[in-house]
């Protein structure tokens, strides 16, 4: 499934989609402003074959100025960081950010958890400091940074039980 370009101003539109295409995609691709934005993104409109939309957006999807953003240096840097070059892009779907805040929060928690995991490893230097302060440091002692930056020490209950047996 694909679309066929027809002649138009600036040589980039309007674009006429195949009969099997989504009618909204056909409408979108017939919009000269949208095709101009695609050109800025270095995306060939002929490679666009599908359009996904989220509820609440349908009446606005024909207005590219409300839903599309131009390719700029910042966006290009993000794409580059993700290992994506413009040549790889065959389809771009633009939609409102419904539930995106929740998604981002979940991802940030993923990063936060990775910090806690790394901080669990107790260093020799910290061990020496804690010993100097009189803290009993068992082999399975765990050290955590809490959210306020304080250090919480959790000693293994098993280690204490072993010591009590001796």
């Amino acid at each position, binding site marked *: 499934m694909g679309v066929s370009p027809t002649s138009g101003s600036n040589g980039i539109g309007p674009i006429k989609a195949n009969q099997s295409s989504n009618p909204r995609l056909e409408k979108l691709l017939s919009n000269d402003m949208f095709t101009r934005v695609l050109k800025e993104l270095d995306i060939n409109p002929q490679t666009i*074959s599908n359009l*996904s939309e989220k509820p609440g957006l349908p009446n606005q999807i024909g207005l590219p100025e409300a839903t*599309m953003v131009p390719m700029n240096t910042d966006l290009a840097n993000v794409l580059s960081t*993700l290992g*994506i070059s413009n040549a790889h*892009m*065959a389809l771009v779907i*633009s939609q409102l950010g419904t539930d995106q805040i929740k998604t981002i929060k979940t991802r940030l928690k993923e990063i936060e958890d990775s*910090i806690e995991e*790394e901080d669990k490893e107790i260093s020799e230097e910290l061990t020496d400091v804690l010993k100097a302060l009189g803290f009993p440091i068992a082999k399975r002692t765990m050290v955590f940074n809490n959210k306020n930056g304080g250090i919480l020490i959790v000693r293994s209950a098993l280690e204490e039980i072993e010591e009590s047996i001796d």
Partner: protein
Amino acid sequence: MPENETYKAKIIQFSDDQKTLPDGSKVIYAENDVKIVVYHKIPFEKGTSYAYDRKTGKIIVNGKEGNNDDKRKMLTLGSYFLDNTDEDDLVTIAVQSKES
């Protein structure tokens, strides 16, 4: 999603390209299966790209390996972005590739 199309990445940013955060900076959030990226741009300064590797847990800042402090900066930026954003302000750009 059709079988011959592969999800590449999702990019979230303000729908209005002129809109900024209260401090005048801009943040773009992006993710794919491998990375989580927060791009921060302060006016008249070079942008900073924080890329967290979801598999290794490592962070790369502007192409160089970072540390826990960089992760905390990334989290602070993400939280600042969320605290000053409504969903209606955002646009999602889904990037997909079509296998030939």
